[in-house]
């Protein structure tokens, strides 16, 4: 179990409550669960890395528990009650400085400290109908929430009374009707203050809290179906979105145009994540497949069938294709090659002599050929 979990570079949570690990180099998927205790109560809603070394995976379930899974040991090491199911499902899970931040659909954002003391918990009420809560990767105490008829709000956990930024809705449309708000997923653009959101009304908005303008700085539209997931790749200026029809698109953030579509998905996209350094994006959804596309040429690199509907995906920062065993083999092979090459170079001396002879012969041939050619020319004349 431990060996298997150390191999896995992609982690997925499914609707049946099973945590799946996929190792792309070995082309295998592993289930980490107890088959006898499966129940739909443990359906995975959110997943997050427990620490920066990515040795722990936090799994948030429908029944309100957050379970800790250790990738080194390959077992669930703990479970903690973080809220009750009456408040809705988890919509966001994040980790700061040894405390967990959870958000549920009813809008309650709560910070859970390591010890089980109930005091000193910071609580924020972000309004009802929250669909997503995300943490700013560069400023860990900033958290953004958004939902159905609940505009984007950025909260600072040290000042939980009021949001530092509340977005304003776009202007009325061409019929002078209010445009409905439904924030489905949020992303923080690295190296800047900007925030990208995708909505259930096929829009992608970019907000800039540093400017006094609370309305979106840029708006883009894609497709005819609600956008469910969003991810920012390592290269700047683009965003990958997925919708309920299984269409994945790469949008350009400067002009709001579609750069390209990633083909292959047949079902709604539930989880989307870009690799932190490589130009790869992993997507999972209701069609029970994990697909890894390359962002440069938009081709499908890997496709893995996992038998349950998948809810969330988590990529590890290391190289997806490599694992400890494989690198060892590669090094050994290289060493052998070098030894062989030395031997070859030793034996090559005789060969080089022959080649010299050959070159000499070729020169002679060229000379003779030239002479013949000259002869022919004479004859024709």
């Amino acid at each position, binding site marked *: 179990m431990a060996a298997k979990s150390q191999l896995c570079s992609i982690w997925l949570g499914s*609707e*049946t409550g*099973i945590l799946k690990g996929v190792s792309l180099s070995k082309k295998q998927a592993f*289930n980490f669960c107890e*088959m006898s205790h*499966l*129940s*739909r109560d443990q359906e995975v809603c959110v997943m997050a890395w427990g620490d920066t070394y990515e040795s722990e995976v936090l799994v948030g379930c429908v029944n309100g528990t957050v379970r800790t899974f250790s990738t080194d040991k390959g077992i669930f090491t703990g479970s903690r009650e973080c809220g009750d199911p009456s408040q809705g499902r988890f919509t966001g899970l994040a980790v700061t400085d040894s405390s967990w931040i959870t958000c549920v659909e009813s809008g309650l954002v709560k910070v859970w400290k390591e010890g089980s003391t109930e005091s000193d918990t910071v609580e924020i009420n972000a309004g009802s109908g929250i669909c997503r809560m995300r943490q700013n990767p560069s400023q860990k105490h900033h958290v953004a929430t958004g939902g159905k008829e609940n505009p984007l709000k950025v909260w600072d956990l040290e000042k939980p009374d009021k949001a530092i930024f509340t977005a304003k809705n776009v202007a009325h449309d061409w019929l002078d009707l209010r445009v409905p708000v439904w924030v489905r997923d949020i992303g923080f653009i690295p190296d800047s203050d900007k925030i990208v959101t995708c909505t*259930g009304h096929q829009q992608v908005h970019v907000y800039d809290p540093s400017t006094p303008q609370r309305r979106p700085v840029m708006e883009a539209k894609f497709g005819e*179906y*609600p956008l*469910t997931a969003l991810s920012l790749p390592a290269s700047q200026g683009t965003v990958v979105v997925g919708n*309920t*029809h*299984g269409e994945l698109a790469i949008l350009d953030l400067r002009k709001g145009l579609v750069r390209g579509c990633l*083909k*292959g998905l*047949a*079902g*709604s996209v539930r989880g989307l994540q870009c690799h932190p350094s490589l130009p790869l994006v992993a997507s999972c959804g*209701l*069609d*029970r497949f994990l697909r890894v596309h390359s962002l440069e040429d938009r081709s499908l690199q890997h496709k893995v*069938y996992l*038998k*349950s*509907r998948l809810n969330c995906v988590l990529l590890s920062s290391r190289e997806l294709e490599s694992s400890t065993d494989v690198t060892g083999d590669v090094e050994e092979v290289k060493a052998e090659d070098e030894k062989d090459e030395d031997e070859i170079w030793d034996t090559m001396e005789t060969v080089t002599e022959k080649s010299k002879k050959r070159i000499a012969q070729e020169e002679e041939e060229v000379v003779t050929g030239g002479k013949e050619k000259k002869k022919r020319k004479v004859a024709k004349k």
Partner: protein
Amino acid sequence: MDSTELSTSESVSKKKKTKQPKRKIKSDNEPSEEMDRTESEVNENNSSSGASFPPTFSVSEIKNKQRRHVMFLKLKQEKRKQKLELKKKRKKERAALGDKAPPKEVPKTIENQRIYDETTVNPEDEEVAFDEGTDEFSAYFNRLTNPKVLITTSDRPRGRTVRFCEQLATVVPHAHVYYRRGLALKRVIPQCVSRGFTYLLVVNEDRKVPNGLVVCHLPDGPTAHFKLSSVRLRKEMKRKGKAPTEHTPEVILNNFTTRLGHSIGRLFAALFPHDPQFVGRQVATFHNQRDFIFFRFHRYIFKNEKRVGIQELGPRFTLKLRSLQKGTFDSKFGEYEWVHKRHEMDSSRRKFHL
């Protein structure tokens, strides 16, 4: 001049067998005009007299339609003869070898050559069994609910669709047909749920002919959208029997092998009550072949232990899955579990999804 006339007429008559004797006479009359030409004539005569044409010749070069047709028929006959001879020879060889004969070659069909689908369900798979045991149909399969079906159409249906709905209601037990009256499905569904319906069937009509079917499992179940084609009503059936009775039929689901196929199969199975009444001797079949689902309704009778007679009653139709949506009918904001994307999924003739 004469030689030129000869050559042109010969080139024209070269291809016509009927003019052969005339050509021979001509060549005899003028034997030594030009050496090259006579040689070519002789060659042509020799070649044509053996009833085999130069290899570059094909039947389509004959401009006269009747003669071309005659030549084509002759060609076909020859080919058929050769084929029969080959067959006879092979049969003799087989008989001669007896037991040592190599096994008979199975002809390749598209079903034989089907690309293996990785989502094919393995019966011993625990995870899939758990998934199916706890999905939206679990209430039916655990015998907690009985099916109750509401059949309706798109707005203002015409002739064929109305009769099709009535016949569907006779085939599916506990089915009620309601006139649509332009109501929105999203508002109809909560009312159905409150009245205890488990299925909503909407037959879509286009130009007086039914062409689509939306099957929605009610409490919060998946919605499948099908393309409906080849609808034959009872009066168009040959040798149909009496009308289907009220007995619950048996259900046969054929060839639903993949995970998606399983979901659709269960969707159809949950339309019918659990215990079929064998007294009624009626059976409803959903046969999946090449992603098309064929529905037939038969009455059977056992003549003796080995022979069965069947009589087709009831409507017959063909379905093709267009999309499977999780949750009740919500085409704009619902999440799709499977959508048929023609350009991506139909690129191979041997790949099927159900």
